[in-house]
């Protein structure tokens, strides 16, 4: 596709509307990778952190070991059961979705802080948006940066497609960080082997899907998904991320396997 030069785009910017589809299309290009080789890992809230030590400690042991071997790993926290409780109360009070996002975020923040306390002795460092531009330093020092998975949209959360629970939650924030930094995949540690045709906790006959593309998955129109629905939309438009992988962190060795780039759970590929 022919793309306008930067000078030509500046000329057009002065005279055309930024809503012009033709002008927007002319700005299409592959961005640079900000931190090449970064590994983006989310630790599920309800699926892992809420299970406490038994689930979390072995996962962190593997993370630390992989960091020691030189992998640049960035961790993200989920919300989990307390976020759900907060959503229920906020919903009952008939609050707008922006308020649900604003009360859901602090729970992921608690979980990020707990991860930091556990990992401090191995270089775990909790960062907010204010420290985001210091990531190169933290990686150089051998740290494991930890962020809450929730994107910072808070009161500016978009209106959900269905219902009132924010569409953009911790899977999304994790994904978007990876896409910005230039990761080529995002790893989601959950308590299931990956994606099934139905929730395997409810239907033991649900079939496992080891790999699938976004468009194939959309065609299946599943009633339930293992990852936030908007992540699939963003993956289909991503410039850096080629796939996301959801795998079972309760199985020993899976974290190391996935971090080594081996197919571990379900991979959802950009078409």
């Amino acid at each position, binding site marked *: 596709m022919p793309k306008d030069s930067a000078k030509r785009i500046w000329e057009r910017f002065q005279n055309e509307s930024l809503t012009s589809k033709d002008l927007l299309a002319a700005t299409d290009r592959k*961005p*640079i990778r900000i931190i090449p080789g970064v590994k983006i890992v989310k630790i599920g809230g309800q699926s892992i952190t809420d299970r406490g030590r038994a689930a979390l400690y072995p996962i962190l042991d593997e993370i630390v070991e992989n960091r020691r071997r030189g992998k640049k790993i960035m961790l993200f926290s989920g919300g989990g059961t307390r976020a759900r409780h907060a959503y229920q109360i906020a919903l009952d009070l008939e609050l707008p979705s922006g308020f649900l996002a604003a009360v859901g975020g602090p729970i992921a923040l608690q979980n990020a802080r707990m991860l930091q306390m556990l990992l401090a002795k191995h270089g775990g460092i909790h960062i907010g948006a204010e420290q985001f531009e210091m990531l190169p330093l933290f990686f150089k020092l051998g740290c494991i940066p930890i962020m809450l998975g929730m994107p910072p949209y808070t009161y*500016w959360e978009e209106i959900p497609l269905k219902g009132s629970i924010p569409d953009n939650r911790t899977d999304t924030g994790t994904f*978007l960080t990876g896409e910005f930094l230039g990761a080529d995949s995002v790893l989601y540690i959950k308590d299931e082997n990956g994606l099934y045709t139905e929730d395997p906790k409810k239907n033991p006959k649900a079939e496992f899907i080891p790999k699938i593309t976004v468009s194939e998955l959309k065609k299946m129109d599943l009633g339930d998904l293992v990852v936030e629905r908007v992540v699939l939309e963003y993956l289909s438009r991503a410039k850096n991320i080629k796939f996301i992988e959801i795998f079972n962190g309760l199985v020993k060795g899976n974290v190391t396997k996935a971090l080594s780039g081996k197919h571990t759970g379900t991979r959802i590929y950009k078409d």
Partner: protein
Amino acid sequence: MKEPEKDFSRFHVKSRFMRESLMDKGVMESTVKENQLAILPEHNVIMIGGKSLMDRGKKAMYPLVEEILENQPNYGMVLSVSGGLRMRHSYSVALDLGIPPGGLTMLAGTIEEQNCRMLYALLAKHGGVRMVRDNFEELAMYLYSGMLPIVVPMPPHFWWEKPPKYGNIPADGADYGIFMFAEVLGARSLIYIKDQDGLYTSDPAKNPKAEFIPKIGVSELLARDMEELIIERNALEMLSRARAINKIYIVNGLKRGTLTAALEGREADAGTVIYQD
């Protein structure tokens, strides 16, 4: 000694979403609400175009400020200014450097800060006050003491910009951000001030035959799939899903009286109205 079996069970807080997948369609459906609490329902949100007004300087901004002040005794207002030409320039340089959309968002906010500071300078002696996003919950204090809070319109997406549908320009820009701000507050009205009378069938600056559209439903407008629009697509998309804001005004800030007409709800004198249909 044999190692005891690991207990992987969860610590739960009891709630209706406990053990549920929030991605489940049935669960999502169960959260559909008829009503949404209005947080600040008496106040109006006004968005001043950066390129269309602020970039024109005194001759555009002074009369507009006068009109805002004339309405101050009757209407509580939150004001905002978008980036304009310098923002577009930052975009074109950043694009050339290969910076991803989240980086462009970070740059845009800086330019809006400049414009909001300049608006603050014009309004300070009349109660203009800058409200940074962290002080969102102080908004009631400003408004109920008759002040004019000035907010940056870009939503706080920062580096977490969603990959845009078209090209590399952030799709959730100033128009979208101020829409979400008005929506979450359940504001009385949302008015976009531009340098055109409102919406036309095509750009009237380029096509003299372009027809003016005084009133249109948002789904009808989106279905027309126009090549360009007077307001960001995602802001319109949000209007079509909105629970609180059911219409927006687009008025010509270079024409005295159109802002007042919109505040008073006189649609016929207030440019274009896009409503939820």
